[in-house]
């Protein structure tokens, strides 16, 4: 176990930080929003990220990857959280790549992973069916037909769902509505016949979509992992996603907190800097304490992905619940402590506030993860 970054990881952090501040600051997200950009990210930015190896950061070397592990990934995600940079990093390089690494056949890995790493192929996970994260409650069906399957159903909150080249679809091949057995994963082209995609405009100005599947025909080799056994892939896949999004959320919290504590040192009221008021000092110091706890949780959760998979379910739920509450606290306090300017669109704090609320819904809210943590601990 290691909770301190090594030299290589620190260098990665510094280079990610300067690249993102130059190439994809919060202003870039504002521009995408204001121009109602149809893609929702800049392909040139993704090309540059891929060139730096970010698209292949967790991929094994055998498939042209960097094999930097999740600690390395976490460093990049945290920095991209500080700048709210919109890109396929999460949906493709974390979720898509992990799904293939965990469950892909040799042939699937050989054809898809190098393309992901090169920044040439993007993916999206079509999982959610209701407005709450309930990964085992799958009604979308995949029925055997001829030599393949016929997929029917509808999905929501599919991150990058309108822009990805391929979809990974979670569907039921047997069992009841909420059985973990009988879930299967399929990988297919987003523009396959029978797929309808509706982009949804979210509060955070990032990408998500509702997708319907109407008798979508796929070959047998679209199956990712064993039929009916998709839960064995989905659970560790979601845990990786939870840890990764939590690392990104750490970036929102740090950036918001630093901007706020800077503001406390420059804003004057009643003839004094507002940071000299104890009412604000204590709230700021309390946030510092929460940030320190979250930092330890994130480091341990990222390490668990790489080194102790048996700890991962509990650590992922701890990390996601902890970061949900952290970003809620810090973004709320950031707005309040900025006062009037805090509620203007001009100040970038609002972007963090809105992104935090969307991220809190990704792969489980606090209630979901508290329930799971308690269950894992036998109560």
């Amino acid at each position, binding site marked *: 176990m290691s909770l301190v970054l090594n030299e290589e990881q620190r260098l990665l952090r510094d280079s990610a930080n300067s690249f993102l501040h130059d190439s994809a600051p919060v202003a870039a997200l504002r521009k995408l929003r204001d121009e109602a950009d149809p893609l929702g990210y800049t392909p040139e930015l993704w090309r540059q990220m891929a060139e730096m190896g970010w698209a292949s950061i967790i991929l094994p070397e055998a498939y042209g990857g960097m094999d930097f592990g999740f600690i390395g990934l976490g460093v990049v995600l945290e920095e991209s959280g500080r700048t709210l940079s919109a890109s396929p990093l999460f949906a493709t390089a974390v979720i898509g790549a992990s799904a293939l690494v965990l469950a892909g056949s040799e042939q699937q890995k050989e054809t898809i992973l190098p393309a992901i790493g090169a920044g040439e192929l993007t993916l999206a996970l079509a999982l959610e069916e209701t407005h709450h994260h309930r990964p085992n409650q799958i009604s979308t069906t995949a029925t055997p037909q001829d030599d393949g399957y016929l997929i029917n159903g509808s999905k929501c909150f599919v991150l990058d769902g309108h822009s990805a080249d391929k979809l990974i679809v979670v569907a039921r091949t047997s069992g009841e509505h909420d059985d973990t057995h009988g879930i299967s994963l399929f990988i297919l082209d987003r523009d396959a016949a029978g797929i309808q995609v509706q982009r949804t405009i979210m509060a955070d100005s990032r990408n998500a979509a509702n997708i319907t599947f109407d008798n979508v025909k796929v070959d047998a080799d679209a199956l990712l992992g064993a039929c009916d056994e998709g839960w064995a892939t989905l659970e560790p896949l979601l845990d990786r996603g939870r840890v990764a999004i939590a690392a990104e959320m750490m970036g929102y919290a740090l950036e918001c907190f630093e901007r706020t504590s800077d503001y406390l040192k420059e804003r004057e009221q009643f003839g004094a800097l507002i940071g000299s008021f104890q009412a604000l000092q204590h709230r700021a110091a309390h946030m510092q304490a929460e940030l*320190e706890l979250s930092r330890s949780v994130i480091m341990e959760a990222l390490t668990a992905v790489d080194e102790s998979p048996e700890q991962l379910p509990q650590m992922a739920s701890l990390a996601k619940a902890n970061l949900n509450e952290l970003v809620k606290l810090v973004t709320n306090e950031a707005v309040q402590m900025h006062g009037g300017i805090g509620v203007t669109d001009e100040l970038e704090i609002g972007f963090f506030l809105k992104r935090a609320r969307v991220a809190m819904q990704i792969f489980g809210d606090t209630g979901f993860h508290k329930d799971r*943590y308690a269950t894992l601990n036998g109560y």
Partner: protein
Amino acid sequence: MTAPVRSDILEDLDQFRSDVRSWLEQNCPESQRQPMTPDQQYWGGRRGSFPSDDARLWFERMRDRGWIAPEWPEAYGGGGLSPQQAKIVAEEMKGINARKPLLGLGLWMLGPALLEYGNEEQKQQHLRAIVNGELRWCQGYSEPGSGSDLASLQCKAEDMGDHFLVNGSKIWTTKADECDWIFCLVRTDPDAKKQKGISFLLIDMDDPGISTSPIELISGESEFCQTFFDNVKVPKENLVGELNKGWSVAKALLVHERKLMSEIGSDSPRQILTPNEAARQYLEFKDGKIADAELRGRITDYDMRMQAVALTHFRTFEEKINKVRSPAPLIMKYVGTEAEKTKSELLLAILGSRGVGWEGEGFTEAELDTTRLWAMSYAMTIAGGTSEVQLNVVAKNVLELPQHKES
């Protein structure tokens, strides 16, 4: 794998761990491998006695091995171990539930301060005596009029040429009625501003003019005392550090105290239930889950928080050995003691009316302990610097927020 520790050192540590494990296995008596109740502890001192023969044997073996104070130099009775090695000893002891053979403020607080600020004579005189359990120490910082504003303290030590003459009183002197020596903050320059005129003095409590009386708390316990000094003569050589510079010694000591208090939860001398365990005894389960959703949520919050706190303890250690600067140590007293208070309140809720019994028949000992510990937990966020003072320190030293004009 991130810690930049060389692989040969790691291998040496593996070897060290296995040596420690087999030594403990051979030398720690079976009876000393269970959690301690207060009457099974050994605090040393002139009036201290061993609670059992096994406790004496265990203490003597650990003393001879140098592991009463594993990180202190061997010349002063310590083990001369590196922080990594000392951590291994602590982990291996915990692994077999080995009891701490000696407890006390001399070991935890004064010793580390003397190693940093004491002169050679003071180290020679006091460190081995602490490790040998010969003397028991208490702390004299707070005064009736100086709590959070510690630097306003008034207990004075006048320079009488060949000695100091001490007059005043100290409060919250833990177990002072059982202690032999006291380390004190005293005012040596009445004209200097606040912390500038304060010195750090060691005083033998057998000296004429010292008296102590216990204070009863809301928990019903009287662990704390008030100690009075009436024309007490203290030799000049008992000054630690420079005259009027005692504040820096005290600050170094406070760091030890806060670290200690933040860790106290995991090392409670009593057999206190965890909320998770208490739930199994006192709450209904339905389909493997606690039926009371509100309490289930609170227990989960607490367990998650404690895991985050434990990981942060671990991280501060890793940062220390890797020489990484971090604000984490400064928040530990605040989060650790607040979590302890949350736990006490939560245990009361889980135990219901069985958690508010005070004494006598009708309750188990564990239930009565729960009530008493709840009442005691209030002192945790006050002693050693209140939570509010901790937050002030973070605001000033970590966030570097502008200070209010008066401070």
